[in-house]
C-alpha cells in the first residue's frame, strides 16, 4: 500500500470511529445538544461528558503522538501556526455559537446526522456549505 493510500484508509477509519462516537453519545440528536446549551431549562450535562471524555483520551494520547518526529504516513504534523487570540477568532466563534444554539448542530453531528436520512441535516449541511462559500468569497483575508 502506498503512503497516500494508507493516509486515505486511516482518514476513513478515523471518520468511522468519530461518527460512531457521535452516534453512541447521541450528539447527532440536536435536542440533546440544545438541552445542554439550555441552562435555563431542563439542563442535560451529557455534552460536557462527551467533551470531557474526548479531551481526557486525546490529552493523554497526543502527548505521546506529538513526541514523535513525524506522523506514521506523513512527513510532518499539520498543526495550526497561529497562536494569537484575535478578533477573527472571537467573532467567528461567537457566530458559530449562535448558529449552534439555533439549530442544535455543530459541523460533526450535522454531517453525521445525514446517515439518518434527516431532512434537517441535509438543509443544515447545505447551509454550512453556503456559509463556507460566503466566508471565502466576502470575508476571507486576501493574500
Amino acid at each position, binding site marked *: 500500500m502506498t503512503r497516500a493510500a494508507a493516509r*486515505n484508509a486511516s*482518514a*476513513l477509519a*478515523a*471518520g*468511522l*470511529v*468519530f*461518527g460512531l*462516537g457521535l*452516534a*453512541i*453519545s*447521541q450528539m*447527532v440528536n440536536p435536542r440533546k445538544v*440544545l438541552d445542554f446549551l439550555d441552562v435555563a431549562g*431542563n439542563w*442535560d450535562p451529557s*455534552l460536557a*461528558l*462527551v*467533551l470531557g*471524555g*474526548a*479531551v*481526557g*483520551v*486525546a490529552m493523554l494520547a*497526543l502527548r505521546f503522538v506529538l513526541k*514523535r518526529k513525524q*506522523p506514521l*504516513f506523513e512527513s510532518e504534523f499539520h498543526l*495550526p501556526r497561529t*497562536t494569537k487570540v484575535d478578533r*477573527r*477568532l*472571537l467573532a*467567528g466563534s*461567537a*457566530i*458559530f*455559537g449562535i*448558529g*449552534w444554539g439555533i439549530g442544535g448542530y*455543530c*459541523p460533526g453531528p*450535522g454531517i*453525521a*446526522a445525514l446517515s439518518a*436520512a434527516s*431532512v*434537517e441535516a441535509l438543509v*443544515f449541511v*447545505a447551509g454550512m456549505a*453556503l*456559509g*463556507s462559500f*460566503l*466566508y471565502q468569497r466576502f470575508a*476571507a483575508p486576501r493574500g
Partner: protein
Amino acid sequence: MKPRPILRAGAPQRDNRHNFRRVLHVANFTPASALIGGALIGISATLLLWLNGRIAGVSGIMHGALQQRAGDTWRWLFLAGLVAGAGAWLWLAPPAFAPRAGYPLPLVLLAGVLVGFGTAQGGGCTSGHGVCGISRLSARSIVATLTFLVTGMASVFVVRHLLGVAS
C-alpha cells in the same frame, strides 16, 4: 427483563419538561454513553494526528474539502466515514435516534449558514477547538470554546425562551 438503557437510551422525553417543570431533574442525562462516545472521539482524533498528522476538526476538514484542491481525497473519506460510522450505530441500535421533525427549516438553514461562516472565520468548531485544541492546551482554542459555549447558550435562551420556538 428490560435491557438496561445505557447505550440505547431513546429520544429524550420532552414531556417531562412540563410535568416536572419546577424539579431539578436530569432524567435525560446519559453519562455512560456520553463518556464512551466521547472516548471514541478522542481515539479518532489521536488516530488522525498519529497516522496522518492532521487535526480532527470537522469544520476545518469540511472547509478544506469544499476548496477542491488536489490531494484532499482524505478529507472526503473522513467525512464519508463520519456518516458511515454514525449510520452503523443507528443500524445496530435503531431506537438510538429518530430525526427531529417539525422544527422550522428556515431556522435550520440559518443555523447552517452561521455555523459554516463562523467556523471558517474562527478556524474551528467543537472538535477542532473543543477537543483537539483543548487537548493541546492551545490558548486560542480555549478562548474559542468558551466563546461559542457562551453564545450558544445565549442563542438557545433567545430561541427557546424568548421566542418560544419548541425544539
